[in-house]
């Protein structure tokens, strides 16, 4: 089977995956509990988690009959992905600030 490795910042381009990632930054979650927190189906959450896992951002483990996901504590990938989002938001807000000022001045 062919697999695609997705870069972390691409994986976090999707708002639902970003929401899942931010939940996982709080603490580890079981798939079913995550699905209960978000307005998406459990199969959709599983699919998003698979993308995050393939991107090296999260790891999973089995606990009884539940599967627990958490951010990958080993890699720098999760930090990089988060900072990528951080600077995206900062620069978008910066652009708005710069261009708004010009309107005010003119």
């Amino acid at each position, binding site marked *: 089977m062919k697999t695609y490795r997705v*870069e*972390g*910042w691409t994986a976090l381009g999707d708002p639902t995956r970003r929401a899942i990632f*931010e*939940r*996982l*930054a*709080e*603490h*580890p979650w079981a798939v079913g509990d995550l699905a209960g927190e978000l307005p998406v189906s459990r199969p959709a959450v599983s699919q998003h988690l698979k993308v995050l896992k393939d991107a090296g951002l999260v790891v999973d*483990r089995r606990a009884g009959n539940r599967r627990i996901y*958490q*951010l990958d*504590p*080993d890699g*720098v990938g*999760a*930090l*990089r992905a*988060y*900072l*990528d989002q*951080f*600077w*995206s*938001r*900062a*620069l*978008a*807000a*910066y*652009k*708005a*600030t*710069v*261009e708004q*000022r*010009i309107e005010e001045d003119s």
Partner: protein
Amino acid sequence: MTTQATGTSVLKSIVVEAPIERAFSVFTEDFGSFKPPEHNLLGVEIAETVFEPREGGHLFDRGVDGSECRWSRVLAYEPPDRVVISWDIGAQWQIETDLEKTSEVEVRFVSEAPERTRVELEHRNLDRHGAGWEGIRDAVGSEGGWPLYLGGFAERVS
């Protein structure tokens, strides 16, 4: 906005409709107005963010109670072309005092037209923060072994 990612850095580029001098001055003087609000290591609300406009200066947040948090050093200040700041925030979402474990952010301003500027941002050497992660992981154990750094962010988002 364009994005590239390499192993240990984040690269961003954005074009703003403003002259290069304004693009530079807003980025430095108004940093506090556009940085994401969860970027706060103080225990209280931030009253202002100060960007000291000189090499050797600091970026610091001042809380409403007067407390201060210096989370960055100005490594290069070359208006209107370039500014480099350090990222002195450690893996436990605390000020990193070991400068070997800090990363840095370079911002370059390139004039594309009299009223248009491209801003290129590179946050590099992220692996330097990684040095502390192993110890944290061991301390926290596998059960809660997520990066506390991100947990700190997340608390402030929510």
